[in-house]
């Protein structure tokens, strides 16, 4: 973003108003900046962050597995102690809001028949952002999402 602003300023300073080769590029933020929207959208809820962290651990999950893992994290209990009610509440939220949101952002693909998620086109970018923040902001969540459920 900083780079873009600098380029616009220097363009204004020119004052001539003349078109120059490459000026069009400077007027428009590169697609890399604009396309960060889906990264923020994807990571804007703790359950979606958790889901994305699990993709770092394994590329394919069923909604049932994910719901159990997330419920265990939220209630701070081992997965074996998650109640059906707790799992169901998370499952419903994943199914009706978080998964469709991530599908819309091109972060994951969802197979409605097997109820399985796997990474899609934009997953790499989101996971890279997550890995960048994991060490400082979200390390406990990341560690839990990436832990062996049977430990």
């Amino acid at each position, binding site marked *: 973003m900083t780079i873009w602003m600098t380029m616009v300023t220097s363009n204004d300073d020119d004052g001539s108003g003349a078109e120059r080769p490459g000026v069009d590029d400077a007027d428009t933020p590169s697609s890399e900046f604009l396309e960060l929207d889906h990264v923020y959208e994807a990571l804007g*809820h703790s359950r979606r962050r958790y889901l994305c962290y699990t993709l770092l651990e394994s590329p394919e999950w069923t909604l049932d597995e994910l719901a159990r893992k997330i419920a265990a994290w*939220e209630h701070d209990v081992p997965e074996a102690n998650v109640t059906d009610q707790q799992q*169901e*509440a998370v*499952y*419903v*939220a994943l*199914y*009706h*809001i978080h*998964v*469709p*949101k991530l599908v819309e952002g091109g972060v994951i693909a969802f197979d*409605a028949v097997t109820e399985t998620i796997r990474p899609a086109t934009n997953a790499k970018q989101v996971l890279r952002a997550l890995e960048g923040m994991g060490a400082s902001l979200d390390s406990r969540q990341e560690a839990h999402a990436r832990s062996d459920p049977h430990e």
Partner: protein
Amino acid sequence: MSDSRGNNTAYGDAPSKKSDPHWRQVAQRHYDPCDEVELTTAIVFAIADAKNVDPTALTSPQLYDCIDAAALEDTFFGAGTLSKQSTGTVQFRYDTYLIRVDADGWIRVFEPGT
């Protein structure tokens, strides 16, 4: 958008009174932001009640295709809204049902009357 008292925001041809002959209330559920259950989940549970099915069996459509429940949760129940005593109603369709969410946390599910 507003009723005569000016404190109610509604969308669509939703029931404005309980006696509305076109819609019959079939389920209701209270959403409490302190329960750590998402509004999406509470709405789906209410619709499942109305259909008399397990919430996990309610697969089509996804609520996401009907309403941005996260935005609604933010508007009615997000940080700061409790102290503002926010009022309002949002109504939307899910399948053949009409869902009404009030700022006081009540979710009501209506089906077409006969």
